């Protein structure tokens, strides 16, 4: 419990900053909605001139774009990108910060098992993400109500927003496994930015070919907003894929971390 609280405290600042950033991004986009909705015709024409790949990349879904839910899919892809970076940062720093700041000796000579340490740290990161998502969702739904022109399904809005959290969990798990395997990570940001962006662009790339299987490559493509809006639910196979990745990465992290030699600085 003490490690958990310590971790949570350590993440306090970053949780606040990330929450505010996500809220600002969504606020910026939502503020555009009313003018876009008004000028729907003109926008449609412009967008139709764009190549399909770009339209897909920005989450443009024909016919849906000018409803609030359809429009929301558009900023959501940026939000998930940023949120992915936040989660990856957390995951990667969980173990590596102890190595980098050379505090591993302190923690690991205390009467706790390594599994207890990793569990507490994982919970700390998890709670930090939950808090971020609660703040984000509260702000996003408040804003949606402010700018809406028609009624919309709150359930679908929630399902769409929840994809942010799912993608974060996947990147959190990926971050952890990287941080226990790589002996020393000098800069968390370099690792997390490159990984998250790589997956983001892989996602865009896989989109252009339109093959279903390729969507498994990038977590960013696990949650198809058009599908969610249409069916008010997730695609089970991708949900499962995400869960499997998270489970395996975390299990592997526990095994690796428990057997790892902690070298002197």
């Amino acid at each position, binding site marked *: 419990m003490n490690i958990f609280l310590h971790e949570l405290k350590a993440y306090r600042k970053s949780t606040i900053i990330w929450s505010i950033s996500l809220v600002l991004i969504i606020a910026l986009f939502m503020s555009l909605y009313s003018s876009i909705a008004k000028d729907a015709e003109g926008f449609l024409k412009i967008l139709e001139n764009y190549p399909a790949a770009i339209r897909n990349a920005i989450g443009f879904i024909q016919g849906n774009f000018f409803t609030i839910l359809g429009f929301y899919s558009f900023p959501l892809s940026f939000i998930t990108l940023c949120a992915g970076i936040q989660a990856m940062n957390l995951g990667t720093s969980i173990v590596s910060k102890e190595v980098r*700041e050379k*505090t591993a*000796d*302190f923690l*690991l000579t*205390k*009467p706790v098992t390594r599994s207890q340490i990793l569990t507490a740290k994982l919970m700390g990161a998890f709670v930090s993400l939950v808090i971020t998502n609660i703040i984000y969702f509260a702000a996003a739904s408040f804003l949606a109500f402010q700018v809406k022109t028609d009624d919309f399904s709150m359930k679908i809005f929630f399902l769409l927003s929840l994809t942010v959290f799912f993608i974060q969990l996947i990147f959190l798990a990926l971050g952890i496994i990287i941080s226990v395997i790589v002996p020393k990570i000098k800069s968390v940001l370099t690792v997390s930015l490159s990984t998250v962006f790589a997956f983001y662009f892989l996602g865009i790339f896989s989109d252009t070919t339109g093959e279903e299987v390729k969507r498994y490559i990038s977590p960013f493509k696990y949650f198809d907003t058009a599908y969610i809006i249409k069916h008010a639910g997730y695609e089970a196979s991708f949900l499962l894929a995400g869960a499997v990745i998270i489970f395996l990465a975390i299990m592997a992290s526990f095994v690796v971390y428990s057997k790892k030699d*902690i070298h002197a600085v």
Partner: protein
Amino acid sequence: MNVIEINNLTKTYGKARGITNISFNVEEGEIFGFIGPNGAGKSTTIRTLLSLIYPTSGSASIFGKDCIQFAPEIKREIGYLPSEVFYYDNMKVKDLLKYSASFYKKDCSKRIKELAEIMDLDLNKKIDDLSLGNKKKVGIVQGLLHEPKLIILDEPTSGLDPLMQQKFFELLEEENKKGATILFSSHILSEVQRLCNRVAIIKEGKIVTVEKISTLKENNYKKFKIETKSPLNQNYFQMSGVNNLAVDGSITSFLFRGDINAIMKKIADIEIANLWIEEPDLEEIFLHYYEKEA
């Protein structure tokens, strides 16, 4: 009873040297020195005891329990001070010590205050703002605040000024009197000589010898230097036990190991002007072990 038992402990890092077949015991209530130059394997041994690293083969037990299997349980009674201390920079000393104490199921606040007072440590400063020596003090308080039964020190004096070193040693002796066993690793022999009852000498990953400090010195030679009124016969001191005999005018010097009476009688038979008999210090014994093996 042995507090630490190390049996054929081996740790290899690929091709690099680790430790090979280390075996020694530390008895309850003793201050045990662990000496050797940098890179001899002292830290590797200690880190294995603390299950920070895992042995390639062999085993070690602390309080009669395997140090890997029962690591969390054992660590409740261990205080550890590394050679270089690093803590969460943005924490206050007070908060760090509280965090450290929160791992042990007892109230340590009184002991923290006592120790901070002895070591002259300001609890309200940020770790980040502390000098190396002051960080070390935090380490000392942190290692002792839960009144451990076994104190493991890995080259603990670096960064401490002589006055603080003195206080620190007194503190250790006090803990020892209260029943704590201490494993003291160092490459500074005078420290070990000052504190320890027994010592293990490690060289290139292997234990060279485990001895009582007093035996180490007893078994060793004494340095004789004799000034005589008239030059001596070159071969006067040529007897068993005498080594490195050198006669330089009226000064005769040699190393002697053996029955001290025999040599004293020999000296009594001649007219001397002055006499020096010196105990070799640990440094020389240490070098002796190292040269012998080389």
